[in-house]
Protein backbone atom coordinates (compact mmCIF):
# COMPACT_ATOMS: atom_id res chain seq x y z
CA UNK A 1 0.00 0.00 0.00
CA UNK A 2 2.82 2.36 0.98
CA UNK A 3 4.62 1.69 -2.31
CA UNK A 4 1.44 2.36 -4.30
CA UNK A 5 1.05 5.72 -2.54
CA UNK A 6 4.67 6.60 -3.25
CA UNK A 7 4.24 5.66 -6.91
CA UNK A 8 1.04 7.70 -7.15
CA UNK A 9 2.78 10.73 -5.58
CA UNK A 10 5.68 10.49 -8.03
CA UNK A 11 3.33 10.19 -11.02
CA UNK A 12 1.25 13.17 -9.83
CA UNK A 13 4.36 15.30 -9.21
CA UNK A 14 5.72 14.41 -12.67
CA UNK A 15 2.36 15.26 -14.28
CA UNK A 16 2.23 18.60 -12.45
CA UNK A 17 5.79 19.39 -13.52
CA UNK A 18 5.09 18.60 -17.20
CA UNK A 19 1.76 20.50 -17.18
CA UNK A 20 3.39 23.54 -15.56
CA UNK A 21 6.22 23.57 -18.07
CA UNK A 22 3.89 23.18 -21.02
CA UNK A 23 1.76 26.03 -19.67
CA UNK A 24 4.81 28.25 -19.27
CA UNK A 25 6.10 27.68 -22.80
CA UNK A 26 5.30 30.79 -24.83
CA UNK A 27 3.20 30.31 -27.93
CA UNK A 28 4.27 31.88 -31.18
CA UNK A 29 2.00 34.77 -32.12
CA UNK A 30 -1.02 34.12 -34.30
CA UNK A 31 -1.09 36.50 -37.31
CA UNK A 32 -2.83 39.80 -36.52
CA UNK A 33 -6.08 40.56 -38.31
CA UNK A 34 -5.88 44.30 -38.87
CA UNK A 35 -8.91 46.21 -40.23
CA UNK A 36 -8.31 48.04 -43.52
CA UNK A 37 -8.99 51.46 -41.98
CA UNK A 38 -6.05 51.00 -39.63
CA UNK A 39 -3.78 49.67 -42.39
CA UNK A 40 -4.40 52.84 -44.34
CA UNK A 41 -3.90 55.19 -41.38
CA UNK A 42 -1.51 58.05 -41.78
CA UNK A 43 0.50 59.55 -38.97
CA UNK A 44 -0.48 62.98 -37.69
CA UNK A 45 3.17 63.80 -36.97
CA UNK A 46 6.18 63.67 -39.26
CA UNK A 47 9.27 61.51 -38.86
CA UNK A 48 11.85 63.54 -36.92
CA UNK A 49 9.19 65.37 -34.87
CA UNK A 50 10.78 66.49 -31.56
CA UNK A 51 7.98 64.77 -29.61
CA UNK A 52 9.29 61.33 -30.65
CA UNK A 53 12.29 61.45 -28.34
CA UNK A 54 10.44 63.21 -25.52
CA UNK A 55 6.77 62.18 -25.40
CA UNK A 56 7.25 58.98 -27.42
CA UNK A 57 10.18 57.84 -25.31
CA UNK A 58 8.48 58.73 -22.04
CA UNK A 59 5.22 56.96 -22.89
CA UNK A 60 7.06 53.91 -24.25
CA UNK A 61 9.05 53.65 -21.03
CA UNK A 62 5.96 54.08 -18.87
CA UNK A 63 3.57 51.75 -20.66
CA UNK A 64 5.56 49.36 -22.88
CA UNK A 65 9.03 48.78 -21.46
CA UNK A 66 8.05 46.36 -18.67
CA UNK A 67 7.09 43.72 -21.29
CA UNK A 68 8.83 44.79 -24.50
CA UNK A 69 12.17 45.83 -22.98
CA UNK A 70 14.12 49.07 -23.21
CA UNK A 71 15.22 48.40 -26.79
CA UNK A 72 12.06 46.58 -27.89
CA UNK A 73 13.73 43.17 -27.97
CA UNK A 74 10.89 41.55 -26.00
CA UNK A 75 13.06 41.07 -22.94
CA UNK A 76 11.23 43.21 -20.36
CA UNK A 77 10.89 41.83 -16.82
CA UNK A 78 7.23 40.83 -17.32
CA UNK A 79 7.77 39.15 -20.72
CA UNK A 80 8.63 35.72 -19.31
CA UNK A 81 5.29 35.47 -17.52
CA UNK A 82 3.25 35.96 -20.70
CA UNK A 83 1.76 33.10 -22.71
CA UNK A 84 2.62 34.71 -26.02
CA UNK A 85 5.88 36.16 -27.29
CA UNK A 86 6.10 39.96 -27.20
CA UNK A 87 8.02 40.04 -30.49
CA UNK A 88 11.12 41.98 -31.46
CA UNK A 89 10.65 45.60 -32.56
CA UNK A 90 14.15 45.74 -34.03
CA UNK A 91 13.39 42.89 -36.46
CA UNK A 92 12.80 43.32 -40.19
CA UNK A 93 9.39 41.60 -39.91
CA UNK A 94 8.18 44.20 -37.42
CA UNK A 95 9.70 47.22 -39.14
CA UNK A 96 8.34 46.18 -42.58
CA UNK A 97 4.77 46.70 -41.36
CA UNK A 98 2.80 49.81 -42.28
CA UNK A 99 2.58 52.56 -39.65
CA UNK A 100 -1.14 51.86 -39.23
CA UNK A 101 -0.50 48.18 -38.55
CA UNK A 102 1.92 49.03 -35.74
CA UNK A 103 -0.60 51.59 -34.45
CA UNK A 104 -3.38 48.98 -34.30
CA UNK A 105 -1.24 46.38 -32.55
CA UNK A 106 0.08 48.94 -30.07
CA UNK A 107 -3.07 50.76 -29.04
CA UNK A 108 -6.08 48.58 -29.91
CA UNK A 109 -4.34 45.34 -28.91
CA UNK A 110 -5.76 41.86 -28.36
CA UNK A 111 -5.57 39.11 -25.71
CA UNK A 112 -2.52 39.73 -23.52
CA UNK A 113 -1.66 42.96 -25.33
CA UNK A 114 -3.90 45.48 -23.51
CA UNK A 115 -5.78 48.33 -25.12
CA UNK A 116 -3.98 51.65 -24.57
CA UNK A 117 -6.44 53.99 -26.27
CA UNK A 118 -7.56 55.43 -22.91
CA UNK A 119 -4.16 55.60 -21.27
CA UNK A 120 -2.64 57.35 -24.28
CA UNK A 121 -5.59 59.44 -25.38
CA UNK A 122 -3.91 61.93 -27.70
CA UNK A 123 -3.51 60.86 -31.33
CA UNK A 124 -0.21 62.73 -31.78
CA UNK A 125 1.22 61.08 -28.65
CA UNK A 126 0.34 57.63 -30.03
CA UNK A 127 2.19 58.35 -33.27
CA UNK A 128 5.19 59.59 -31.27
CA UNK A 129 5.29 56.13 -29.64
CA UNK A 130 5.01 54.41 -33.07
CA UNK A 131 7.93 56.45 -34.43
CA UNK A 132 9.92 55.82 -31.25
CA UNK A 133 9.50 52.08 -31.95
CA UNK A 134 10.51 52.67 -35.58
CA UNK A 135 13.84 54.02 -34.24
CA UNK A 136 14.54 50.61 -32.69
CA UNK A 137 15.34 49.18 -36.11
CA UNK A 138 18.62 47.23 -36.21
Amino acid at each position, binding site marked *: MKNSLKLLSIVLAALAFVTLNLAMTQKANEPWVIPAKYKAMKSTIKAGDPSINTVGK*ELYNQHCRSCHGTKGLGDGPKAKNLKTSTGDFSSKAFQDQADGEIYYQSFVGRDEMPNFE*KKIADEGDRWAVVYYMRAMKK
Partner: protein
Amino acid sequence: MKPMKNILRIFATVVIGLLLAQNVAFAQEEEVTEKPKERPARAAFESGLLFDGATTTLQPSKTLEMVIQHRFGSVENGITDLYGIWAPSNIRMGLNYSILDNLMVGIGATKFNKMQDIQLKYNVLQQTRSNKIPVTISVYEVIGIDGSADSKFGNNYKFTNRLSYFTQILISRRFNDKISLQVAPSFTHYNSTDSLVDHDRFAISLAGRYKFSPQSSLIISGDFPLQIQGISEYRKDVNDEQDLPPVANICIGLEVATSTHAFHVYLGSSQGIIPQENILYNKNKFFKGNIILGLNITRLWNF
Protein backbone atom coordinates in the same frame (compact mmCIF):
# COMPACT_ATOMS: atom_id res chain seq x y z
CA MET B 1 -19.76 83.11 14.76
CA LYS B 2 -22.74 81.39 13.07
CA PRO B 3 -23.41 84.16 10.49
CA MET B 4 -19.71 84.00 9.50
CA LYS B 5 -19.99 80.21 9.01
CA ASN B 6 -23.02 80.65 6.78
CA ILE B 7 -21.26 83.34 4.75
CA LEU B 8 -18.32 80.99 4.19
CA ARG B 9 -20.62 78.17 3.09
CA ILE B 10 -22.42 80.47 0.66
CA PHE B 11 -19.04 81.70 -0.63
CA ALA B 12 -17.82 78.12 -1.27
CA THR B 13 -21.10 77.22 -3.02
CA VAL B 14 -21.00 80.32 -5.22
CA VAL B 15 -17.36 79.70 -6.26
CA ILE B 16 -18.10 76.09 -7.24
CA GLY B 17 -21.29 77.18 -9.05
CA LEU B 18 -19.43 79.81 -11.04
CA LEU B 19 -16.73 77.36 -12.06
CA LEU B 20 -19.30 74.82 -13.23
CA ALA B 21 -21.20 77.51 -15.15
CA GLN B 22 -17.97 78.61 -16.81
CA ASN B 23 -17.44 75.06 -18.07
CA VAL B 24 -20.91 74.99 -19.60
CA ALA B 25 -20.21 78.37 -21.26
CA PHE B 26 -17.03 76.98 -22.82
CA ALA B 27 -18.91 73.95 -24.16
CA GLN B 28 -21.58 76.17 -25.73
CA GLU B 29 -18.96 78.39 -27.35
CA GLU B 30 -17.30 75.36 -28.93
CA GLU B 31 -20.58 74.12 -30.39
CA VAL B 32 -21.33 77.44 -32.08
CA THR B 33 -17.96 78.30 -33.61
CA GLU B 34 -16.61 74.77 -34.34
CA LYS B 35 -13.00 75.86 -33.99
CA PRO B 36 -10.22 73.33 -34.62
CA LYS B 37 -9.98 71.01 -31.65
CA GLU B 38 -7.42 72.11 -29.07
CA ARG B 39 -5.10 69.34 -27.91
CA PRO B 40 -5.23 68.99 -24.13
CA ALA B 41 -1.85 69.19 -22.41
CA ARG B 42 -0.56 65.98 -20.88
CA ALA B 43 -1.41 65.59 -17.19
CA ALA B 44 0.60 67.80 -14.84
CA PHE B 45 1.02 64.94 -12.35
CA GLU B 46 1.20 61.18 -12.87
CA SER B 47 -1.45 60.39 -10.29
CA GLY B 48 -4.52 62.10 -8.83
CA LEU B 49 -2.87 61.62 -5.44
CA LEU B 50 0.23 63.47 -4.26
CA PHE B 51 1.19 62.29 -0.73
CA ASP B 52 -2.15 62.83 1.05
CA GLY B 53 -3.41 65.62 -1.16
CA ALA B 54 -5.09 65.71 -4.54
CA THR B 55 -3.76 66.87 -7.90
CA THR B 56 -5.73 68.05 -10.93
CA THR B 57 -5.02 64.70 -12.65
CA LEU B 58 -8.07 62.55 -13.33
CA GLN B 59 -8.05 59.07 -14.79
CA PRO B 60 -10.08 58.35 -17.97
CA SER B 61 -13.76 57.41 -17.59
CA LYS B 62 -14.54 53.90 -16.33
CA THR B 63 -11.22 53.61 -14.50
CA LEU B 64 -11.17 52.13 -11.01
CA GLU B 65 -8.30 53.20 -8.79
CA MET B 66 -7.32 51.47 -5.56
CA VAL B 67 -5.35 53.61 -3.13
CA ILE B 68 -3.31 52.50 -0.12
CA GLN B 69 -1.77 55.28 1.97
CA HIS B 70 0.47 54.47 4.92
CA ARG B 71 2.21 56.68 7.46
CA PHE B 72 4.50 55.35 10.16
CA GLY B 73 5.16 57.18 13.45
CA SER B 74 7.58 60.05 14.00
CA VAL B 75 11.30 59.36 13.52
CA GLU B 76 12.08 61.40 16.66
CA ASN B 77 12.55 58.42 18.99
CA GLY B 78 15.31 57.09 16.78
CA ILE B 79 16.35 53.46 17.00
CA THR B 80 14.06 52.85 20.04
CA ASP B 81 11.11 52.37 17.71
CA LEU B 82 13.13 51.96 14.52
CA TYR B 83 12.60 55.56 13.41
CA GLY B 84 8.83 55.32 13.68
CA ILE B 85 8.39 51.98 11.88
CA TRP B 86 7.44 50.24 15.16
CA ALA B 87 5.37 53.21 16.35
CA PRO B 88 1.58 53.39 15.86
CA SER B 89 0.91 54.02 12.18
CA ASN B 90 -1.98 55.48 10.25
CA ILE B 91 -3.36 53.83 7.12
CA ARG B 92 -6.09 54.58 4.60
CA MET B 93 -7.58 52.31 1.97
CA GLY B 94 -9.67 53.89 -0.74
CA LEU B 95 -11.37 53.28 -4.05
CA ASN B 96 -11.89 55.96 -6.70
CA TYR B 97 -13.96 55.58 -9.85
CA SER B 98 -13.98 57.91 -12.84
CA ILE B 99 -17.59 58.23 -13.96
CA LEU B 100 -16.61 60.66 -16.72
CA ASP B 101 -13.27 61.82 -18.05
CA ASN B 102 -13.66 64.88 -15.83
CA LEU B 103 -15.55 63.48 -12.83
CA MET B 104 -14.28 61.11 -10.15
CA VAL B 105 -15.96 59.83 -7.00
CA GLY B 106 -14.24 57.97 -4.21
CA ILE B 107 -14.67 56.35 -0.83
CA GLY B 108 -12.12 55.48 1.82
CA ALA B 109 -11.52 54.34 5.39
CA THR B 110 -8.73 55.59 7.64
CA LYS B 111 -7.45 54.00 10.84
CA PHE B 112 -7.10 57.14 13.03
CA ASN B 113 -10.46 58.34 14.40
CA LYS B 114 -12.08 55.46 12.43
CA MET B 115 -12.58 58.05 9.72
CA GLN B 116 -14.65 57.23 6.60
CA ASP B 117 -14.59 59.59 3.68
CA ILE B 118 -16.47 60.33 0.48
CA GLN B 119 -14.58 62.23 -2.21
CA LEU B 120 -15.46 64.01 -5.41
CA LYS B 121 -13.17 65.63 -7.96
CA TYR B 122 -14.42 67.54 -10.97
CA ASN B 123 -12.19 68.90 -13.70
CA VAL B 124 -13.45 72.31 -14.72
CA LEU B 125 -10.78 73.47 -17.14
CA GLN B 126 -8.03 71.61 -19.00
CA GLN B 127 -4.67 73.15 -19.94
CA THR B 128 -4.07 73.03 -23.69
CA ARG B 129 -0.84 72.47 -25.59
CA SER B 130 -1.26 75.73 -27.46
CA ASN B 131 -1.41 77.51 -24.08
CA LYS B 132 -4.74 79.05 -25.02
CA ILE B 133 -5.81 77.67 -21.65
CA PRO B 134 -2.65 77.94 -19.52
CA VAL B 135 -3.78 75.96 -16.46
CA THR B 136 -5.88 73.00 -15.40
CA ILE B 137 -8.49 73.67 -12.74
CA SER B 138 -10.32 71.06 -10.68
CA VAL B 139 -12.66 71.23 -7.71
CA TYR B 140 -12.09 68.70 -4.94
CA GLU B 141 -14.41 67.87 -2.06
CA VAL B 142 -13.84 65.45 0.83
CA ILE B 143 -16.58 64.68 3.35
CA GLY B 144 -15.26 62.93 6.46
CA ILE B 145 -17.35 60.82 8.82
CA ASP B 146 -15.67 60.24 12.20
CA GLY B 147 -16.50 56.71 13.41
CA SER B 148 -15.34 57.22 17.02
CA ALA B 149 -17.59 56.36 20.02
CA ASP B 150 -20.54 58.72 20.62
CA SER B 151 -18.97 59.88 23.90
CA LYS B 152 -16.18 61.67 21.99
CA PHE B 153 -18.72 64.24 20.80
CA GLY B 154 -19.97 65.33 24.24
CA ASN B 155 -23.36 65.24 25.93
CA ASN B 156 -25.49 66.59 23.10
CA TYR B 157 -24.47 63.99 20.55
CA LYS B 158 -25.93 64.17 17.06
CA PHE B 159 -24.78 62.24 13.99
CA THR B 160 -23.90 65.49 12.24
CA ASN B 161 -21.18 66.06 14.89
CA ARG B 162 -19.19 63.40 13.06
CA LEU B 163 -19.06 65.25 9.76
CA SER B 164 -16.22 67.36 8.42
CA TYR B 165 -15.83 69.04 5.03
CA PHE B 166 -12.83 69.94 2.90
CA THR B 167 -13.36 72.01 -0.25
CA GLN B 168 -10.43 72.84 -2.49
CA ILE B 169 -9.81 74.48 -5.85
CA LEU B 170 -6.80 72.89 -7.54
CA ILE B 171 -4.93 74.97 -10.13
CA SER B 172 -2.00 73.29 -11.86
CA ARG B 173 0.28 73.99 -14.78
CA ARG B 174 2.53 71.60 -16.64
CA PHE B 175 5.40 73.92 -17.59
CA ASN B 176 7.27 71.30 -19.60
CA ASP B 177 7.91 67.55 -19.61
CA LYS B 178 9.84 67.81 -16.35
CA ILE B 179 8.29 70.54 -14.22
CA SER B 180 4.70 70.91 -13.00
CA LEU B 181 3.41 73.12 -10.20
CA GLN B 182 0.09 73.40 -8.40
CA VAL B 183 -1.50 75.91 -6.07
CA ALA B 184 -4.68 75.03 -4.22
CA PRO B 185 -6.66 77.24 -1.84
CA SER B 186 -9.00 75.32 0.45
CA PHE B 187 -11.62 75.68 3.17
CA THR B 188 -12.01 73.16 5.98
CA HIS B 189 -15.00 72.89 8.29
CA TYR B 190 -15.61 70.48 11.17
CA ASN B 191 -19.09 70.33 12.70
CA SER B 192 -17.53 69.34 16.01
CA THR B 193 -13.95 69.87 17.18
CA ASP B 194 -11.83 69.39 20.28
CA SER B 195 -11.89 72.27 22.75
CA LEU B 196 -9.79 75.29 21.69
CA VAL B 197 -9.75 74.09 18.06
CA ASP B 198 -11.44 76.29 15.45
CA HIS B 199 -14.27 74.82 13.40
CA ASP B 200 -13.21 76.61 10.21
CA ARG B 201 -9.89 77.22 8.53
CA PHE B 202 -8.70 78.45 5.19
CA ALA B 203 -5.45 77.03 3.87
CA ILE B 204 -3.26 77.18 0.83
CA SER B 205 -1.46 74.15 -0.57
CA LEU B 206 1.49 74.18 -2.93
CA ALA B 207 2.82 71.18 -4.83
CA GLY B 208 5.51 70.51 -7.38
CA ARG B 209 7.07 67.78 -9.46
CA TYR B 210 10.43 67.48 -11.12
CA LYS B 211 10.53 64.46 -13.44
CA PHE B 212 14.12 63.30 -13.72
CA SER B 213 13.60 60.02 -15.60
CA PRO B 214 10.76 58.57 -17.71
CA GLN B 215 9.22 56.93 -14.66
CA SER B 216 10.63 58.76 -11.63
CA SER B 217 10.01 62.20 -10.17
CA LEU B 218 10.99 64.24 -7.17
CA ILE B 219 7.76 65.47 -5.57
CA ILE B 220 7.15 68.07 -2.90
CA SER B 221 4.11 69.64 -1.26
CA GLY B 222 3.14 71.95 1.57
CA ASP B 223 -0.25 72.58 3.15
CA PHE B 224 -0.25 75.93 4.95
CA PRO B 225 -3.19 76.57 7.32
CA LEU B 226 -3.97 80.30 7.50
CA GLN B 227 -4.58 81.99 10.83
CA ILE B 228 -7.33 84.50 10.03
CA GLN B 229 -8.44 86.20 13.23
CA GLY B 230 -11.76 87.20 11.67
CA ILE B 231 -12.96 83.59 11.54
CA SER B 232 -11.00 82.28 14.54
CA GLU B 233 -13.01 81.48 17.66
CA TYR B 234 -10.01 81.70 19.98
CA ARG B 235 -7.38 84.27 20.87
CA LYS B 236 -4.00 83.76 19.28
CA ASP B 237 -1.99 84.44 22.48
CA VAL B 238 -2.59 81.04 24.06
CA ASN B 239 0.36 79.66 25.99
CA ASP B 240 -0.07 75.91 25.80
CA GLU B 241 1.77 74.40 22.79
CA GLN B 242 -1.18 72.06 22.08
CA ASP B 243 -3.57 74.99 21.85
CA LEU B 244 -1.54 76.85 19.25
CA PRO B 245 -2.91 76.95 15.70
CA PRO B 246 -2.05 74.05 13.37
CA VAL B 247 1.21 74.20 11.43
CA ALA B 248 2.23 73.43 7.86
CA ASN B 249 2.24 69.84 6.63
CA ILE B 250 5.39 69.51 4.50
CA CYS B 251 6.13 66.43 2.38
CA ILE B 252 9.04 65.57 0.12
CA GLY B 253 9.59 62.28 -1.66
CA LEU B 254 10.06 60.14 -4.70
CA GLU B 255 7.35 59.06 -7.15
CA VAL B 256 7.68 56.08 -9.46
CA ALA B 257 4.85 55.73 -11.97
CA THR B 258 4.21 52.78 -14.27
CA SER B 259 1.34 52.14 -16.65
CA THR B 260 -0.99 51.04 -13.87
CA HIS B 261 0.72 51.99 -10.61
CA ALA B 262 2.09 55.03 -8.81
CA PHE B 263 4.35 54.61 -5.78
CA HIS B 264 5.32 57.35 -3.35
CA VAL B 265 8.05 57.00 -0.74
CA TYR B 266 8.34 60.18 1.25
CA LEU B 267 9.04 62.11 4.42
CA GLY B 268 6.15 64.15 5.76
CA SER B 269 5.13 65.88 8.95
CA SER B 270 1.41 65.29 9.56
CA GLN B 271 0.26 61.85 10.61
CA GLY B 272 -3.29 62.48 9.48
CA ILE B 273 -4.19 61.27 5.99
CA ILE B 274 -7.41 62.90 4.85
CA PRO B 275 -6.75 66.60 4.11
CA GLN B 276 -9.08 68.18 6.69
CA GLU B 277 -7.23 66.35 9.49
CA ASN B 278 -3.92 67.76 8.30
CA ILE B 279 -5.24 71.30 7.93
CA LEU B 280 -6.98 71.50 11.32
CA TYR B 281 -4.96 69.26 13.61
CA ASN B 282 -1.33 69.00 12.50
CA LYS B 283 1.10 70.16 15.19
CA ASN B 284 4.18 68.35 13.82
CA LYS B 285 6.86 70.72 12.57
CA PHE B 286 8.87 69.26 9.70
CA PHE B 287 11.89 71.51 10.28
CA LYS B 288 11.92 70.71 14.03
CA GLY B 289 12.39 67.02 13.26
CA ASN B 290 8.74 65.84 13.62
CA ILE B 291 9.14 63.75 10.49
CA ILE B 292 7.20 60.66 9.45
CA LEU B 293 8.01 58.08 6.79
CA GLY B 294 5.10 57.58 4.38
CA LEU B 295 4.24 55.18 1.55
CA ASN B 296 1.48 55.34 -1.05
CA ILE B 297 0.48 52.85 -3.72
CA THR B 298 -2.20 53.31 -6.37
CA ARG B 299 -3.41 50.69 -8.83
CA LEU B 300 -5.58 51.35 -11.88
CA TRP B 301 -8.02 49.10 -13.74
CA ASN B 302 -9.69 50.20 -16.97
CA PHE B 303 -13.11 48.92 -17.95
